[in-house]
């Protein structure tokens, strides 16, 4: 390609780009392309940023119409990571659905699990039967996951600006959380740990101490990141006043999460529509007034500290429970409760020998429940439900429709990244191309969630 003069063709591209000449850049041929563009003298130049561009936060395609360095129009092209998760969930049992929806926003997998399970529990009308300990564990995991997700937002956002150190520090401390997840759920991401009716298994022995040991390290990492960024003139220069979206615009476009709170509205579902007992924890709803990329970063920094505050409170409660003995982590109703009792032995992890003894040796009823739940799952009364939770990126909505069967008739997720991404155009238009990267990083979309 580099030996031939780039050929400009009349493009039949996406809406809005008809009639514009089309170039394919293969790297290293910029001189030829710009010479050709100059010769043609088109008034409009439309540039595709992504879907493989390293700074588009995944596989997002941003269609930019530019005038010199200024962006006159920006549109997000999505769908490159479409996996059909929602459709697939219609062909899986309610329990199996967890293993699918956890993969949507893979940076914050536990939130999809929690949102989905809360929704299923609402449909089953067992919300109040979920054991206290299961709820505590859910909160613990979610808040740790919130920190991990914000770490990725800040770290990879910095990396996209060329500040690799931000990423290495953020990922170093996120690793502490990943270790906790691995110790508890057996996986670093996509855990399928939260299940309808509770959680898959109790915390691993020593988890609370492990989390306590990790908190100072994570705090330290947050402090270091703040030192590197928040007062740094270059960082401020790149971030302040960039990706500006005031409150009215954010509300009109349905944006939530850090975008909304950075515009000054203390909107957080943990406070406005508490679930999982969030009303009993002491934490602040963080707001800033800058409404720009910088304010969003500050909100994330401060939210991480708030999450750690909640984590500490949960740990206290979990340890108080530990002192009382064993507590269930799954609903008591044998027709719904997932029947497994895992134990680690020299032969690996599998159902505990006591559980085997019970279902195979002594209780015919337990065996029947086990077989039924495992093969076809439980039935969920017909109806529909909408459950919202506060995801690190905004509002996660789960809309489930049941026709009374063992599988969802329809499962729909309102992913926060998807709605937040709508703000990209208004944030970028009028700014420079370089600011698109900053604005995008401040939205922090995860394309697995956007495309589902």
């Amino acid at each position: 390609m580099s030996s031939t003069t780039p050929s400009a063709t009349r493009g039949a591209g996406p809406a809005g780009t008809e009639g514009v000449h089309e170039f394919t850049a293969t790297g290293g041929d910029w001189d030829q392309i710009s010479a050709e563009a100059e010769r043609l003298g088109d008034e409009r130049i439309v540039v595709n940023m992504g879907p493989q561009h390293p700074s588009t936060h995944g596989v997002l395609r941003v269609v930019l119409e530019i005038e010199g360095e200024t962006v006159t129009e920006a549109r997000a092209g999505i769908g490159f990571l479409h996996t059909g998760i929602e459709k697939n969930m219609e062909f899986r049992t309610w329990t199996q659905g967890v293993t699918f929806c956890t993969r949507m926003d893979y940076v914050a997998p536990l939130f999809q699990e929690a949102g989905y399970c809360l929704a299923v529990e609402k449909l089953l009308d067992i919300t109040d039967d979920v054991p206290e300990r299961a709820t505590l564990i859910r909160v613990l995991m979610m808040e740790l996951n919130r920190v991990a997700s914000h770490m990725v937002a800040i770290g990879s956002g910095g990396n996209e600006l060329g500040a690799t150190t931000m990423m290495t520090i953020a990922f170093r401390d996120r690793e502490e959380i990943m270790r906790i997840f691995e110790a508890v759920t057996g996986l670093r991401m996509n855990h399928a740990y939260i299940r309808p009716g509770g959680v898959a298994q109790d915390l691993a022995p020593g988890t609370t101490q492990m989390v306590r040991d990790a908190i100072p390290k994570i705090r330290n990492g947050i402090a270091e990141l703040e030192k590197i960024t928040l007062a740094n003139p270059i960082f401020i220069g790149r971030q302040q006043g960039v990706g500006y979206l005031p409150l009215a615009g954010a509300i009109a476009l349905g944006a939530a999460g850090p975008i909304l709170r950075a515009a000054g509205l203390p909107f957080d579902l943990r406070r406005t529509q508490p679930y999982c007992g969030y009303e009993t924890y002491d934490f602040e709803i963080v707001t800033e007034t800058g409404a720009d990329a910088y304010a969003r970063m500050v909100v994330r920094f401060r939210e991480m500290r708030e999450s750690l505050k909640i984590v500490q409170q949960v740990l206290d409660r979990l340890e108080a429970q530990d002192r009382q003995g064993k507590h269930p982590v799954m609903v008591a109703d044998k027709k719904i409760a997932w029947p497994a009792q895992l134990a680690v032995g020299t032969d690996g992890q599998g159902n505990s020998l006591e559980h085997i003894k019970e279902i195979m040796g002594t209780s015919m009823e337990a065996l029947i429940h086990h077989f039924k739940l495992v093969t076809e799952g439980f039935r969920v009364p017909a109806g529909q439900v909408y459950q919202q939770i506060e995801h690190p990126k905004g509002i996660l909505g789960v809309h489930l429709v049941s026709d009374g069967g063992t599988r969802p008739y329809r499962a729909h997720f309102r992913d926060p990244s998807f709605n937040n991404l709508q703000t990209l155009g208004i944030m970028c238009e009028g700014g420079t191309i370089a600011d698109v990267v900053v604005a995008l990083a401040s939205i922090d979309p995860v394309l697995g969630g956007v495309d589902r």
Partner: protein
Amino acid sequence: MADQGKGRSPARTGTGKNVPAKTKTKAKAKAKAKPDFDVDGDSDKNAVQEFLAPVAGFGVTMSTLFRPVVTEQYPFEKKGTYPRYHGRHQLNRYADGLEKCIGCELCAWVCPADAIYVESGNNTPGAQYSPGERYGKVYQINYLRCIFCALCIEACPTRALTMTNDFELAGTSRAEMIFEKETLLAPLRSGMLAAPHPMIEGTDDDDYYRNEVTGPSLDQVDWVRERRPDDETLEAAAAAAQRAAQATVGGAE
């Protein structure tokens, strides 16, 4: 722009660019001496720290120089996983060498990724592989499909299927990544007698499920010796059975 940023308390900035932000934020900071969110006092800065804030990043870099490196040197140094880690599957055996898998297909049913294929076969008096009537004749796990969710081990009613901590699963072809029963079966520990052979006389499958079988019996050893005199596990199993028999006699006395 840079000037405006200078001297601000880092965690307190974020007011619009063109506002006389300095005075405003300062006043706010004074009203609330210690920010409420600041649990560990990181933003409680004195004048010098505030003056140095724009270059505080260099301090982080310098101090990092003297900290231990966190990079893991995989594959030269393996750190291992946590015990619950979802790694490669394993099909287990009872202490006498019979397979635990009864071919019930629950693992295959529950698998959300359709990664498991099981075909069960009938145990016959001449070829008994597992306690009870059925055993897993064909057992495959397709690691190109498996998402390591562990639902299968949760479904298995006999603890035949477990997950080990082995995560080094890579291959160069599709066929290689579909693990067959021979690969998945746990190796015979010393003292186990290779299947097929009958169950221990006087027991039924429930005794196996209750984990009451502790090793091969002399009758089982004889059965195998008669039919497969070259079986490699025979000698060790015979010794184990002998020891067990003596222990029982000793215990009875």
